[in-house]
């Protein structure tokens, strides 16, 4: 049996930005994600198109998507957003530990003779051990595979679509900030002194 394991947010954000999470549905296999990914993808403004796409896809997949709870994820969900940001600044590689824990859980919960395909974007994933029959597949390689199987016409076009979508969202974000709420004057000086989010 084949299990698709997604340990970092990159692949899902990439596919969600193109609104093509349905491409994962083309394969008859369970999908395992970590609770940290779920938390990361469902936070942020409701207007984020990748968030809406992810929530729609996740709800529609029923029990085909399994969320693996981790100690890291459980604690993370209890922290206020400000504390999370502080921790991220102080320990930029904290995510690596959560993936390591996820990898160990995956190796425990899946049958030893299952084939595991790890869809990833983060290099640190290469250093993890998910089990015996593990094959790594970067999102870009996954898109190329889809092209060669005739599922999508062009991997290159799909990635360009993601980049174009990102450009459009970034512009939307700047435009929203530029239009003052309630019609009042916008104070731009706050942006100079504010610490990065």
């Amino acid at each position, binding site marked *: 049996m*084949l299990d698709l394991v997604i340990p*970092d*947010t*990159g692949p899902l*954000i*990439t596919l969600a*930005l193109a609104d093509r999470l349905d491409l994962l*549905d*083309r*394969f*008859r*296999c369970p999908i395992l994600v970590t609770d940290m990914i779920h938390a*990361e993808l469902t936070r*942020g403004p409701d207007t*984020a198109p*990748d968030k809406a796409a992810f929530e729609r896809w996740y709800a529609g997949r029923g029990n085909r998507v399994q969320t693996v709870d981790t100690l890291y994820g459980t604690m993370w969900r209890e922290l206020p957003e400000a504390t999370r*940001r502080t921790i*991220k*600044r102080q320990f*930029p*590689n904290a*995510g*690596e530990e959560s993936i390591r824990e996820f990898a160990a859980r995956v190796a425990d919960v899946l049958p030893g003779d299952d*084939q595991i*395909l790890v869809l990833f*974007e*983060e*290099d*640190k994933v290469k250093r993890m051990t998910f089990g015996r029959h593990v*094959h*790594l*597949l*970067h999102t*870009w*390689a*996954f898109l*190329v*595979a889809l092209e*060669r*199987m005739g*599922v999508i016409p062009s991997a290159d076009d799909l*990635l360009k679509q*993601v*980049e*174009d*979508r*990102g*450009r459009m*969202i*970034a*512009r939307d*974000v*700047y435009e929203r900030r530029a239009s003052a709420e309630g019609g009042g004057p916008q104070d731009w000086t706050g942006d100079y002194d504010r*610490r*990065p*989010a």
Partner: protein
Amino acid sequence: MDLVTPHDVLSAYAQAEISADDAIASLGLNGVRDLILAMAEAGHHLPRPAEADVEAQLAAAMPLLLSVLNDGRGDA
């Protein structure tokens, strides 16, 4: 490697010279979503693995994916 400006950091990430975590930390961003937006806004392409790596990954993954591909004849 001296990464002074946001352009330096984003360029290094685009060339896969630094990880997403490093880029996010260097720029004070709030996750992968923001990094993709920053890359797009600055006109950078998203990083891709080397051709040889892609082919090696595909050699192992293609047979597995084909074995579970829903071609419309089975139930998805």
